[in-house]
C-alpha cells in the first residue's frame, strides 16, 4: 500500500528549477510514458485509468476512463486530445501550479493519454492571461521535442505525437468544453448545442477527448502505481487517488495542497489552511469554485434514512462530510474544482452574491436569453438590495429569476450561476431579507484596506 500522505502530483513542485527537463527527468519524469509506449497496449493503459476511478478534475467529475471509452472513430478519422487549461472558475488556481512548476508532468500525461485514445495530436488550450504559464509550457515542449520525446517517434516508438499550446484571449466561457473547441477553431467561444458530444464530433469535426490539466497530469502516477492501487489512495469508493485542493479567502495559509480524495472541508481548512484568518469565527465556505453552492458550517446533515448516501454523517456539520464528487452532490452542492473560498463572520452574504453575479453577468456569452438577461437581472436586483433601494418581493424575485435560468440554456454556465445564487438565498435567507429592507449593514468589511486586513487590525 502506498502511503496516502506521500505527495505524488506535487512531488517535484519544491525542487529548484522543477520546470526544467533536466531536473524533472532526474526526479522521474517520462519514465512512465517511456514504459507505457514501449511495453503496453493502448487498451491496457485505458484499463488502468478505468480501474483508477479517476474523476475529471475540471468541475463535473465525470470518470475519465469512461469518457475515453466513448470514442468510436470511423476509418480515416483523426482523434484529438484537447487539454483544458482555461482555469477561469473564480476561486480556482490549481492547474496553474502544474503548468508553472511541473510542465513536464502535463506533457508526460498528454503523451500517455494520446497513446491510450489513439490520438496523434494534442492541444493544450491555456487561458490567455497566463502568459508566464504558456511560456513555461512552450519551453518545456521545446526541451521534450529536442530529446525526441514529443515528435515522430517518442522514446523510439513508431507512434508520432505532436503537442501544441494554444492561447485563449480572455473569456471564462472558453472553459466550457464546446466553447473551448469553437475558440480553438478560431471562432467566438460560444458553446455548442450537445449532442453531438465532443467524443463523437469535436474539434475540426473529429472525435475529441477534452480533459482538464490535472486529470491528464494524474495519468503518469496511475500507471506508475497501477490503477487499483492509485484508486485505493482515496478515502472514498468510486472516486480515486489524491488531488489538488485549493483554499483562498479568509484563511491563514491560502494555497494549493495535495491530499487524498475524501478529506473533509474541516481538515482542509484547519489542518492544511491553518484555520480562519486571524482566528475569527467562520461564516461560510464556497467549496469548489464560484459555481458550487455555499456551505454553512452551522448547518447539519439531514440524512436520517439508512439508505441515504450521507447517513453516516447524519447530524454532523456540512464541513465534516468527506469531499468527493458523489458525497458533495448528495449534500446538494458540488465538489467542482475542489478549490474552496473561505469567508469569516464579517462578511455579508448579499455582498458575496453581488460580487459573484457581477462575474456571471460579465462572462455570459449571450447566446441564450435566460442566461444573458437573467445574469443582468440578478445583478440589478442585488445592487438595489445592497443599496437599500429594493422593492418588496425582490428576494423572491432573485429566486424566481435563478429558477428560470436553470436547465433552459445551451450550456451549464446558466446553472453554474443560478445554483450558487439559490444556495446563498436558501442558506442565508434572513440576511437577504434584512438587506432588502435596509441595505447592507454598516460594518460590512468589503471596504477594508489590504494592510489593515492582513495585520489583523480590521
Amino acid at each position: 500500500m502506498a502511503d496516502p500522505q506521500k505527495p505524488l502530483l506535487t512531488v517535484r513542485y519544491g525542487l529548484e528549477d522543477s520546470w526544467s527537463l533536466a531536473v524533472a527527468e532526474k526526479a522521474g519524469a517520462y519514465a512512465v510514458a517511456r514504459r507505457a509506449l514501449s511495453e503496453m497496449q493502448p487498451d491496457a493503459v485505458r484499463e488502468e485509468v478505468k480501474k483508477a476511478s479517476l474523476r475529471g478534475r475540471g468541475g463535473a467529475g465525470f470518470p475519465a476512463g469512461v469518457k475515453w471509452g466513448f470514442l468510436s472513430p470511423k476509418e480515416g478519422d483523426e482523434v484529438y486530445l484537447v487539454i483544458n487549461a482555461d482555469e477561469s472558475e473564480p476561486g480556482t488556481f490549481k492547474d496553474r501550479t502544474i503548468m508553472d512548476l511541473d510542465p513536464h508532468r502535463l506533457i508526460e500525461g498528454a503523451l500517455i493519454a494520446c497513446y491510450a485514445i489513439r490520438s496523434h495530436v494534442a492541444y493544450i488550450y491555456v487561458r490567455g492571461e497566463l502568459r508566464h504559464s504558456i511560456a513555461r509550457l512552450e519551453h518545456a515542449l521545446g526541451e521534450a521535442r529536442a530529446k525526441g520525446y514529443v515528435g515522430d517517434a517518442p522514446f523510439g516508438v513508431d507512434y508520432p505525437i505532436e503537442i501544441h499550446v494554444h492561447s485563449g484571449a480572455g473569456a471564462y466561457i472558453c472553459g466550457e468544453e464546446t466553447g473551448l473547441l469553437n475558440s480553438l477553431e478560431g471562432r467566438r467561444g460560444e458553446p455548442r448545442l450537445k449532442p453531438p458530444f465532443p467524443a463523437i464530433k469535436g474539434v475540426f469535426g473529429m472525435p475529441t477527448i477534452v480533459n482538464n490539466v490535472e486529470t491528464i497530469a494524474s495519468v503518469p502516477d496511475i500507471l506508475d502505481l497501477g490503477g487499483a492501487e492509485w484508486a485505493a489512495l482515496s478515502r472514498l469508493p468510486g472516486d480515486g487517488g489524491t488531488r489538488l485542493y485549493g483554499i483562498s479567502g479568509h484563511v491563514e495559509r491560502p494555497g494549493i495542497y495535495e491530499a487524498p480524495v475524501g478529506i473533509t472541508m474541516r481538515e482542509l481548512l484547519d489542518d492544511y489552511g491553518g484555520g480562519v484568518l486571524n482566528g475569527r469565527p467562520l461564516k461560510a465556505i464556497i467549496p469548489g469554485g464560484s459555481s458550487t453552492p455555499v456551505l454553512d458550517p452551522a448547518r447539519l446533515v439531514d440524512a436520517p434514512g439508512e439508505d441515504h448516501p450521507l447517513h453516516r454523517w447524519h447530524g454532523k456539520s456540512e464541513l465534516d462530510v468527506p469531499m468527493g464528487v458523489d458525497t458533495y452532490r448528495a449534500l446538494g452542492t458540488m465538489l467542482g474544482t475542489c478549490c474552496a473560498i473561505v469567508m469569516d463572520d464579517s462578511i455579508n452574504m448579499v455582498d458575496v452574491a453581488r460580487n459573484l453575479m457581477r462575474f456571471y453577468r460579465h462572462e455570459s456569452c449571450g447566446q441564450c436569453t435566460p442566461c444573458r438577461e437573467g445574469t443582468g437581472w440578478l445583478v440589478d436586483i442585488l445592487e438595489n438590495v445592497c443599496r437599500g433601494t429594493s422593492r418588496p418581493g425582490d428576494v423572491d424575485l432573485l429566486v424566481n429569476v435563478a429558477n428560470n435560468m436553470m436547465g433552459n440554456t445551451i450550456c451549464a454556465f446558466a446553472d453554474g450561476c443560478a445554483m450558487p445564487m439559490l444556495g446563498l438565498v436558501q442558506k442565508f435567507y434572513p440576511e437577504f431579507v434584512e438587506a432588502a429592507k435596509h441595505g447592507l449593514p454598516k460594518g460590512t468589511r468589503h471596504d477594508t484596506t489590504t494592510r489593515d486586513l492582513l495585520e489583523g487590525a480590521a
Partner: protein
Amino acid sequence: MTFALTPDRDQKADEYLTRYPSARAALLPVLWLCQEQNGWISPEVIDFAARRLDLSTAAVKGVVTFYTMFHQAPVGDHVVWVCRTLSCDLRGAKAIQEHLEGRFGCHAGGTSTNGKFSLRKAECLAACGQAPMVQIDDRYYENLDLGQLDRILDTIERDGIEAAVERFATEASFDPDAGPKARPLQSVPPPPVSKEAADAAQGSGTSTDKPTEDE
C-alpha cells in the same frame, strides 16, 4: 495605412498555420502576434488578419470583440489588470483598485494622463491563493499590499518593466513545507481572537461600494 507583420513574426504565423488542419484556427495566435507588434487590434490589423487567413473582416471582427484581451483601442504603455473577483475582494482588492485609480488619475477602463498605464478590472485570474493581485502586461504580481504595489509601479516608471519583472513578478507558488508534510493531519486549535480586533472589525468601514460600471 496598411498593416503587416515583421518578417520574423510573419514566419511565426506560417509556423502556426502548420499546427492546425484549418487556417482559421490560427486566427487567435495571429491576432496575438499582431497585438504584440501594434499594441492594439486596429481596423488595419483586422484587414491584415482577414487577408492572411482568407477570412471575411466580419468574421475577424466578431472574434476580436468576443475576447477581453484584444484591445480594440490604443492603450497605455502598460496595462494593469486588477482582479476584483471574490477571493481577491475578500483580501482587499477594492483598496488596490482605488489606490491605482488615485495614482493614475483615471477610473478602471481608462488610461493615466501621462499615457503610461491603462487600468482594467479583471475577473478571477487563477491566483486566488496569493490575493490580492494584479497583472501588469504579461506577468502577475501577487500577495500585494499598497506599499508593495507602489514599489512595483515606481520600478516600472524608473527602470522599466523588465526590472519590475525581475524583482517582483510572481509565478504559481507552492510551499512544500506547508500542509500535512510539516504537520500531520490533526486539528489545529484556532488562535484566540483578540477582543480589540473583533470590536474594530464590527465598527470599521462603511458600505459605500458604488455600483461599479463594467468597462
